[in-house]
């Protein structure tokens, strides 16, 4: 997991941004941001308004940059919709989760990618198969879950997050984006969800996580990216960086 943003490397990054800029009126949310993300867990930290969420939104196709490009495996890709982003293998977990409340766990895991079979030209859904696969996927998420037929409405915050993560894992996403996945969770559920995230990174997926909890980030991430006022200001090594260093990167000099 060597060779992070800026460092010369022979391996082409899974996901990269080249000279991304995004303005909202007079505010520059992103200002010429170039970064590379490699397999493992990369944590993005920064103060409010630093541009973290804007960067993630561009990767997930929700926002389109004013300038610059997103690269997948070194090739520029046009991400003009959530659909386009998903098609190139980017799976996003949104802060508000993006689950259909009225549907079951299984149907949420397969949302937009339902298992179907064709009979006389009609695409019929295969509920049993989806339930089976979903139940199997749920055993991997380290958090106690009811049957996959249960409605998402009846789940706790951590369980919902686990459903969203199971969905990302199930479809072998090449890049998983997480925007504060534990913001609304209690300590136990936070631990479980972070466990799932860590598992994904250990399996060699490229996981990008925005977070506010600095000690957590230092402990968990393989790489760190600090943003301030729309720019990437530092890419410290989490093994050798202190909390004080991080805070200083985030807000400028502490003195």
């Amino acid at each position, binding site marked *: 997991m060597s060779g992070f943003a800026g460092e010369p490397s022979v391996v082409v990054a899974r996901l990269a941004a080249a000279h991304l800029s995004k303005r909202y009126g007079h505010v520059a949310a992103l200002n010429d941001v170039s970064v590379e993300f490699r397999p493992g867990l990369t944590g993005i930290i920064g103060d409010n308004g630093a541009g973290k969420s804007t960067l993630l939104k561009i990767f997930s196709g929700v926002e389109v940059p004013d300038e610059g490009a997103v690269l997948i495996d070194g090739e520029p890709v046009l991400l003009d919709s959530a659909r386009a982003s998903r098609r190139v293998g980017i799976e996003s977990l949104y802060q508000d989760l*993006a689950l259909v409340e009225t*549907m079951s766990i299984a149907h949420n895991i397969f949302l937009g990618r339902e298992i179907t079979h064709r009979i006389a030209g009609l695409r019929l859904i295969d509920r049993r198969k989806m339930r089976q696969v979903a139940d199997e996927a749920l055993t991997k998420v380290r958090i106690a879950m009811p049957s996959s037929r249960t409605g998402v409405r009846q789940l706790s915050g951590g369980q919902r997050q686990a459903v969203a993560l199971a969905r990302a894992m199930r479809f072998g996403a090449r890049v998983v984006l997480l925007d504060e996945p534990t913001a609304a969770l209690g300590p136990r559920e936070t631990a479980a969800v972070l466990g799932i995230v860590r598992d994904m990174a250990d399996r060699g997926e490229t996981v990008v996580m925005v977070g506010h909890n600095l000690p957590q980030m230092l402990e968990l991430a393989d790489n760190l990216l600090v943003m301030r006022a729309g720019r990437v200001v530092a890419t410290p090594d989490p093994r050798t960086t202190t909390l004080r260093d991080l805070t200083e990167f985030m807000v400028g000099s502490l003195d």
Partner: protein
Amino acid sequence: MSTLAEAGKHNGDIVAPDPQASALDSRRRLTGTLSRDVLIDIALVVALGLLMAIFGVASSGKEFLGTNIVAIFDSGAILGVVAVGEVIVMIAGALDISVGSNAGLVTAAVAEVMLHQRNDLPLAIVVGLLVGALAGAINGLAVAYLRVNAVIATLATYSAFLGAALLVTNGNQVGVVSSFLATLGTGSAASVPYLVFILVVVVAIAMFAMRSTLAGHRVYAVGGGPTASRLAGIRVQRYLLGVFVVSGLCAAVAGVMLVGQTGTAQPTEGSVGLELTAITAVLLGGTGLTGGTGTVLGAVLGVLVLSTLDNGLLLIGVPSFWQEVATGGLLLVAVLLQDVGGHRARWRAVRAARRRAARSGAAMAVRP
């Protein structure tokens, strides 16, 4: 750092079963595997049986059952077809107020084609269905692509379609001479009216489409979580457009049935007002206004309950004005009953909180 160590960089530590989750599982066992939809369907069938029994006894027996049950289905057939379109729109989280005047416009179109194209019935029916579908597409385009609120968009087209129907017919009733349509509208086979056959076919197709096809499944997804569906790559706008076209098509079928039943184009009579009764039936059938829930079967059972009520009250000699009152009362009671679980849970929680507060002498009560 203990929680983090737990979350850890090591695999294999499973979090202990969540008590909340197991409580949830046992609650599911209590209600069996019956979903809310199935429970509502059962309740509607029971209500239907009760109504029939009450009216059967009140009208002193045999007269009510037998031929009258056929009459109930017959009078509900046209409304039923409209309600099928309406429930699909409502499952998608929208509403279609224009279905009644759309049906009226279709009758006008059918009548005009018959009048000017030497009674070419197949052509008239094709034009009628096209007009209905096109009217639905206008609604769909306005709601899905121009992002007009569905209530406002279809309220506007309700008025526009009605006006168009009056323009086409010059405000007159236009007679339609077709023995085929007349037979369709008033005839029967083995004492089952042809209109009921049409209803059964429409309901069967709709139930299959909504339960088993990918398109139907996604209509539920789009209605239950439009944002989540869009982010999951589902083309939400297309599905919205689609449900309005289906609803327009159902209104068109109802319009053709109406021409058969009455032998005339009915720009207003018999068609306008269908929308509100259809929405009532859909709500009775357990479909909410928020989308993502409900069933075609529930809506049809709702239609049958309404026609049974009308039919029965008429039979036992209750003045027709009371029928409207009874319909309204029924709707209120049904919607309250459907939510009774939620209300009870909240009440229990509130009462428990008050008891706790009283025990601990909470300051809240003291505050002026």
